[in-house]
């Protein structure tokens, strides 16, 4: 276990080192001192307050990563999660403010609306794929821009809160029954104190539950098996009785439904929001693509990747005063991602080659034991044995 775990760490750690080196070179080109910059970054994150904020910010990124990972597992690239969550957050925020329900019903109601809206929007791409053979990458990205325009239209024409001055385009604030309280009280009960003005938002348990649900669905259910099989070997899936069209429909709906929840941590648990408006964070869906890739579509990996990403974002926030452009954080994260996907691939090929070599050696030994002298060294294990990875997409 632990050796396997350590081996899995080699690729991300070497990617992190490479990313630090690349960012340092970028800083040197810009005439800045990288050591000073990284020291400042460490100082920024080295407090309870910072760690709490990092966790709060990592939660939506984590959901975003899980949303696209569901599709990635069967080579369905839902790159339109950005539009799905914006539309879902708008409609869920509006609907949540319009109804009055007891908290035990109100919270599930907002969840349900967000998931149905996000899932339905993704379902358009799925239907176009199974009926008209439209590439999912293309349709989801087109629907992404359509969703951005549509949500801006709906916000300004239908869902805008007229009473609140009407100057700022935003929905009505959701009532307290739809809000999730912070988790501070729970931790204080255990004797841990966050300090003044620091709140751990209440969406964290839902995110953890989502991760566990994703793991169980993927690894412990018939559907998860079919999904992974469809991704790694579509022909085998087909001959074992999986209906590929049905899989596309269900998987994209689920991916969209989870994407619909990306905005909920802000909507339900962040006291600065509780409503959808022009200030609502955009672009979380695109970040989620990187996080799913970094986390290798695995729930624990996605969680780690989301925390790393949120840490980089937080750490680079206060670089301005010492003269270092905060944009270095985006280079750090981007190069980390690019090197990491390469490192994962190299590690995978090496493992596959080792497995092939071991298998060849075993066959060889078996033959020797059986007294077969005719072995002319076929299937020699030297050199990496390339394995064809399934083609991306379903063109």
């Amino acid at each position: 276990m632990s050796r396997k775990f350590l081996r899995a760490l080699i690729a991300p750690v070497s990617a992190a080192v490479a990313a630090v080196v690349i960012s340092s070179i970028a800083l040197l080109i810009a005439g800045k001192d990288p050591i000073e910059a990284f020291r400042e970054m460490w100082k920024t994150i080295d407090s309870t307050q910072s760690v709490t904020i990092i966790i709060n910010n990592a939660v939506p990124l984590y959901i975003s990563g899980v949303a696209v990972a569901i599709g990635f597992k069967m080579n369905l690239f839902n790159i339109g999660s950005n539009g799905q969550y914006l539309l879902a957050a708008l409609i869920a925020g509006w609907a949540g403010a319009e109804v009055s329900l007891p908290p035990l019903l109100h919270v599930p109601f907002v969840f349900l609306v967000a998931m149905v809206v996000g899932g339905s929007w993704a379902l358009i791409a799925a239907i176009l794929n199974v009926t008209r053979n439209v590439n999912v990458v293309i349709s989801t990205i087109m629907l992404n821009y359509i969703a951005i325009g549509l949500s801006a239209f709906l916000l300004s024409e239908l869902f805008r809160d007229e009473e609140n001055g009407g100057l700022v385009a935003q929905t009505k604030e959701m009532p307290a029954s739809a809000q999730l309280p912070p988790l501070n009280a729970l931790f204080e009960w255990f004797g841990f104190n966050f300090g003044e003005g620091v709140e751990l938002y209440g969406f964290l348990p839902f995110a953890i539950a989502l991760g566990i649900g994703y793991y169980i669905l993927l690894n412990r259910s018939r559907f998860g098996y079919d999904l992974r099989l469809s991704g790694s070997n579509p022909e085998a899936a087909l001959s074992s009785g999986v209906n590929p069209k049905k899989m596309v429909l269900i998987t994209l709906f689920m991916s969209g439904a989870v994407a619909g929840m990306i905005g909920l941590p802000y909507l339900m648990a962040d006291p600065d929001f509780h409503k959808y408006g022009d200030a609502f964070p955009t672009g979380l869906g695109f970040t989620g693509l990187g996080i799913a890739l970094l986390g290798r579509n695995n729930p624990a990996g996605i969680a780690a990747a989301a925390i790393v990403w949120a840490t980089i974002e937080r750490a680079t926030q206060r670089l301005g005063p010492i003269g270092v452009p905060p944009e270095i954080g985006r280079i750090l994260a981007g190069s980390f991602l690019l090197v990491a996907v390469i490192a994962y691939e190299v590690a995978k090929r090496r493992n596959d080659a080792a497995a092939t070599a071991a298998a060849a050696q075993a066959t060889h030994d078996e033959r020797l034991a059986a007294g077969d002298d005719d072995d002319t060294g076929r299937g020699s294990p030297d050199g990496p044995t390339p394995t064809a990875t399934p083609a991306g997409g379903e063109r």
Partner: protein
Amino acid sequence: MSVIIPNEEEANADPVVRAWHERPHWRIFLWTVVGVAVMSTARLLSGNDDLTSSGTFGVALRTAAPVALAGLSGLVAERSGTINIGIEGMMVMGTIFAGWWGWEFGPWMAIVGGIFGGILGGLLMSLATTTFGVNHIVAGVAINLLAPGVARFMANELFTDVQGGSVTSSPGNSGDIGEFTVPFLSGGELFGWTTPNIMEWLEDTGWFMIADVAGFVLGVTSEVSWDVILTVGLFFGIAYLLWSTPLGLRLRFAGERPSAADSLGVNVHLMRYTGMAISGGLAGMGGAVLVLFANRYQEDQVAGRGFLGLATMIFGNWMPLGTAAGAGLFGYAQGITLRTNPGELVRALVLAAALGLLVVLAWIVYTQNWRAVVPMTAITLVTFWAYFAATEPNNQLVFVTPYVVTLIAVSVGAQRLRPPAEEGIPWFKGMQ
């Protein structure tokens, strides 16, 4: 040793005798005429002359150019075996370098800079996909996330301390790239003499169909800036390169049958790197065209055009002419949103779509394709209803028009497509 000479007549005989309207050239011609008639009718019925005015087509050509370059970029990449989802990121790299060099050295260097930035992105992606065999979509997504960060970092370094510049915008290009107008046809100058503008006169008559064609011709032949002309030239250049030169044959070979190419001595990895360098350069030039249009680098000015280019390429069935047609469609759909009264124009376009559907319905009845009648009637009625029921859409909805048009076009067109056989599959020496 006798050579069997096939009976010439037998070899040339078409196995199916086709009706006149099914012969390819006639069909294209017929549908073009019908299309012009539909647009012209919609213009006359809605009273909105801007639907087919030279101004609209002029803007359409301008907005189509970056998407067309992105499509061409995808075409070269996929023909040489790499699915290039990273076009968007390469265009971003193109915009930042074009904004930088255009500001320092002038508009022509903006194009060179854009191409340079795009090639950097293309080679970086090829390193991941070709050398390391990373899934092409994964690598493309990584490039798309990395490029805006690089662009913002560079903009911060280059433009923040300069008059007129900021982290999201360059100070502006130094100089204008210039325009060209065709003499006689559109009133261009010939040795200092302003020639008569025949097309403008025809357009002003407002005659059914003739004014619309004149508007199109005038729009695409007058005041066309040189970067757009270069774009059109690149379409011919790339088509020639891919289908008429040894290098082009090898590039396509690497995308169709890499193992066979390898056995015939083609360096597959070199070809895939070359393809990605050309692809990146074209995408970067698409970014440069955007910079020249806005006269400066602006953050997020690519706005999904890389993906739109990819969509037009799929719509065009991995062929240059089809890609250009797809980009033209998108350019038109975006062009009308940039005119003075976009809401009305979008409504007129819906009317044109409804009329077009009516023609298609009539065609279906004429060819007695009874199974398609009911769904087509429903779609036609819904479109007419949309025209009469809906009021003028506001700006936020007008913004989505090109994306909706592209999505519809891909859905209608994505039937008998043939992508390169082994695109997107990592290849290494010794693979079958």
